[in-house]
Every structure is written in C-alpha cells, then in structure tokens.
C-alpha cells in the first residue's frame, strides 16, 4: 500500500485528528506519506514526521492559506496521480470532508466516510463504518484505486513514534474556479462561555426547547444538579446559545458522569462529542429519536413537562 494522509493544520500546529489517522496508517503499512497544504506550513513537517510519516510532502503557497477545500483538491489530485498513491486518508473535519469528496469526484475514486476503524484483510483495505444512526456496523471496501476514506473524528489518538521524515516540496497549481470562494473572516469565536469540559454533570439543550428562552429550564436543572449547560450545533448556529457550550464534532468533546439531553435528536455529529459520558439520559417527545439508541435512560416526553418537574424533585432531594 502506498498511503497518503492529509494532515490539516490550525494555528501553526497539525490537528490531532489528522495525526491520529497518520498513526493508524503507519501501523497498517510502512510506506506512509503525509501531505501538508497551507501557507507557511513547512515548519510543521517535523512534528508530523514524529507521528508516523516516513515522508512529508509540503505544498506551501498563498493560494492555500485559507482553509478552503477546492485549491486543496487541485493540489492533491495532481499529487496522487504523479506519485501513484493508492490510498488517501483524512481525519473528518468540515474542511477535510469537502476536500475528500471533491477529490473523489475529480479522480473517480471511491470515498468511504465515517469510518471508526481500518484493517488490512487478505491484502485488502477494509473500513468499519457504523451506519443508520450506528444501528449496524458495516465492513466497507473499495472497487478501485485510489481508495479514499474519512475517519470519524476522535477515533484514533496520535502516537509519537519519534521518527523523522524526509521533507519534499510539491508544486501548487490551482484552477480558476477553485480560487473563487474567498475567506472574509476566519475562525471567529462568537462569544465566551463557561468551560464544560471538566463538568461532572452536563444538561444539554437542543432545538426541542423551542426558542432561545427555552434554555431557562435547562439552566435551572443544571443549577439544581450543580452541573454545566451544553448545546447542539443547531441551537448554536441559530444564536440561542454560545459556541463555547457546543458539544459535538465541531464543538467540545465531553465525558461527564451524567449527561442529560433535552430536546436533542442525537445526530452522529452530536454523539461523537458526548458518547464517552458515564450515564446518558435523554428526554425527547419523539419515540423514534435517534438519541434513544444510545441512551441509558430514554424518557419519551415533552421537555416542558418533564424538565421543570425534574428540577423541583432534584432540589427537594438534594435539600437545596
């Protein structure tokens, strides 16, 4: 296997998810190259080399400065073809998903996404993909090369192997249409909020709370339990709650002892941020809500009925 791992960077560092995938790739085969694409990213080759890459290919150009997908597709397509990589792996992210899918179209290459494991079986690469709301585990393969894969975020931890990589600069040629989308403002954190990562108890709210003011019942319950308040992307995007409170793929990863989800459907992108919680209680009025698939206690009911009552009972019980 000639494997290429796309390593994303942020604020002068390779991102953890990419390094985790790199470590896994190195474990599966020896000829693993990593590719860094950006502006002023050459210095990142060294830490990438320490995490399992035998070679680091660096595309350094102002056209790659903003984290936008299409210029990256142009560079990767040329690279994969000229170097003959048969496998290209990505750690899932907003950027990587668009890069991987664009590359799949450009090269007519198969893309399997949301993988939680990779193995080589009888010389063939096989991916493990939980599908249909994680209700079935699917072994997926590819019918041609190159094989492209997006690994679910948080799947592999980076491992420092201590090696050093051979660093090569690669050409950067970008098509006109790929330059048309431009970044006007980047990675702006909307507002500060309390830290939720260390909380033992988290009460999280989603769109089922109905309106921004609906969060008050969640805040009351969190207060009664001495916990923190979290939110889904849907309500953060809608401006109901600050980004700092968001749990999930593009938010925080939390693992409290108790996670109470109120009016949250339970999308996989939310699940990846809270599945490590000790006990998961979900309150949702839809008996088919996907979150019930991975809750320890599923409460089918209206949050406006259940949550305030629960708060009162908790207060009585805890004598506060």
């Amino acid at each position, binding site marked *: 296997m000639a494997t290429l791992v796309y390593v994303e960077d942020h604020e002068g560092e390779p991102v953890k998810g990419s390094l985790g995938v790199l470590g896994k790739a190195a474990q599966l085969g020896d000829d693993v190259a990593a590719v860094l694409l950006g502006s002023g990213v050459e210095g990142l080759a060294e830490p990438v080399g320490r995490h399992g890459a035998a070679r680091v290919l660096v595309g350094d150009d102002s056209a790659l400065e903003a984290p936008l*997908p*299409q210029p990256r597709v142009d560079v990767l397509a040329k690279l994969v073809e000229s170097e003959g990589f048969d496998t290209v792996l990505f750690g899932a*992210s*907003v950027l990587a*998903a*668009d890069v991987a*899918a*664009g*590359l*799949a*179209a450009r090269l*007519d*290459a*198969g*893309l399997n*996404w*949301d993988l939680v494991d990779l193995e080589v079986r009888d010389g063939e690469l096989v991916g493990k993909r939980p599908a*249909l*709301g*994680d*209700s*079935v*585990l*699917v*072994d*997926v*393969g*590819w*019918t041609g090369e190159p094989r492209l894969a*997006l690994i679910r975020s948080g799947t592999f931890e980076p491992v420092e192997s201590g090696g050093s990589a051979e660093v090569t600069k690669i050409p950067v040629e970008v098509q006109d249409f*790929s330059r*048309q*989308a431009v*970044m*006007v*403002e980047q*990675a*702006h*954190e*909307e507002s500060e909020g309390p830290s939720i990562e260390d909380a033992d108890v988290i009460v999280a709210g989603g*769109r089922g709370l109905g309106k921004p003011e609906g969060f008050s019942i969640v805040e009351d319950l969190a207060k009664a339990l001495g916990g923190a308040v979290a939110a889904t*992307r849907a309500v*953060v*995007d809608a401006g109901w709650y600050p*980004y700092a409170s968001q749990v999930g793929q*593009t938010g925080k990863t939390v693992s409290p*002892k108790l996670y109470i989800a109120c009016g949250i459907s339970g999308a*996989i992108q939310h699940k990846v941020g809270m599945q490590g919680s000790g*006990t998961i*209680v979900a309150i949702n009025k839809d008996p088919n809500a996907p979150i019930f698939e*991975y809750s*320890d*206690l599923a*409460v*089918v*009911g209206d949050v406006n009925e*259940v949550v305030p*009552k*629960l708060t*009162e009972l908790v207060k009585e019980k805890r004598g506060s």
Partner: protein
Amino acid sequence: MKVLVCVKEVPDASAPKRLDPQTFRLDRSVAGALNDFDTHAIEAALQVKEATGEGEVVALLMGPEKAADSLRKALAIGADRAIHVADESLGGSDLVATSKALAKALERESPELVVFGQQAGDSDGAVLWAAVADRVGLPVVSQAASLELADGKVRVKRQTEYGYDVIEAPLPCVVAVSDAINEPRYPSLKGIMGAKKKPQETLSLSDLGLSAEDAGEAGSRTRVLALADPPSRGESERIEDDGGTAAEKVVEYLSSRKLL
C-alpha cells in the same frame, strides 16, 4: 434568480431503517419521506428567489420511482418545477456515481445558485455537494448557517471546529445549508393542491448522456462487504411520561445509580 435545490427521499422517521442482508443496500421499500434537512434547503432557495423578486426554484432528485412523492412535496412547499432522475440502473450508486448523474442534470439547467441540504438522513454523508461542485467546476461553500446575496455574490457564515468563518463566492455557485439556517415553511393546502399541476420532468440515464457503466454498482467505487451488529451498549431503560410520572422515575433512576 434561477435556483436549483437538490433533495433526497429517505426512509420515513417512523419506518424501520435496515440494510438488506442480501444486497447490502438500504431497504427503500419502506415508507419514504422528503429528507428533513432538505426542507431547509428548499426554504433557503425560496427565500433567495423571493428576495430577488424573479426567477424560479427547481427541485432535483435522484431516486426510485416512488420518490416522486417527495418531489411533489418539494413542489407543495413552493418549488416551481421538479426534475426526477430515475433509472433502474441507478440503484446502489455511491458518491462517485450519484455526483456524476446529478452533475449532468445540473448542467442541463445552468442555475445561478445550487442549494444542498446539510446531510441525507440515511447516509449521513454530508459530502455530496463538494463532489457535484467539482464535476461542474463551480465554487462551493458548505455548512452555511446564514446566506446573504449581494452584488452577484453569496456571503455565508458557517461553523467549523474553530468557530465561525465568513466566506464569499461569486455566482454561479453551490451552497450547502445547515439545519439552523431557517424555519422551513409547511406546504399550504393550496400548495398541495397546486403541486400536481406544476411541471415535472423525469430523466433517464441516456437523457443525461450517461451509460450503465456510469451508474449503480458499475459506476461506484465503494462496496459493502459485510454487516454486523454494533457493539452492545449494555442495558438501557425506557419510560413514557404517562400522567406526568417521568420526572419521579428519572430521580429514582439517578438516585439508584448514586448520581444525585
């Protein structure tokens, strides 16, 4: 402005979702419904058309014959016209094959704006737009939490792992919208009655200038090898809030596990 919106039919939320153990394909014989995420895409498209005061919204769907019901729902909500890409040989298409067919259908229309939903509720890919955009050579912006149009450009605010980006792209372009971008309108009675009279076109593979090798399993580059049960999550309990007793049961549950 001419806006094209890509929509999908997925199994209805209440229908059992399963992969066929023989074909490994999603069992699409169960009741279907318009992908919820795509109602936000339709709403975004309608708002753009309304803001510019002219043009049309065209709904494009690839799927089996019975998915025509979901296209009709898109028309009932407010799309002006529908295109259904339906062909026996399209079954089992993966990203490569699906994006190829949709790109061909899109090229026939040359819309100024193409809108996608956040994700298909069955495949959870959240990737198709980038593949289609690459095939038609248009700029793409995904995860749009807001979408504004001015001076022949779209301006999108979107969330990534690090906060919010603001991205601009000139028309024509492809935008995938998040499920928080708007509150989708419901079809009105008038909309439902009028849907049947709106223009609907069905396109086969040959209408798209594609052949059987481009579609279905032949045109796909991925495959399913085996199915298994996911790791067990251990015991789980379910309670219904009958007569308002749920809160008490939750407290009992938490107390018994020393979580209070």
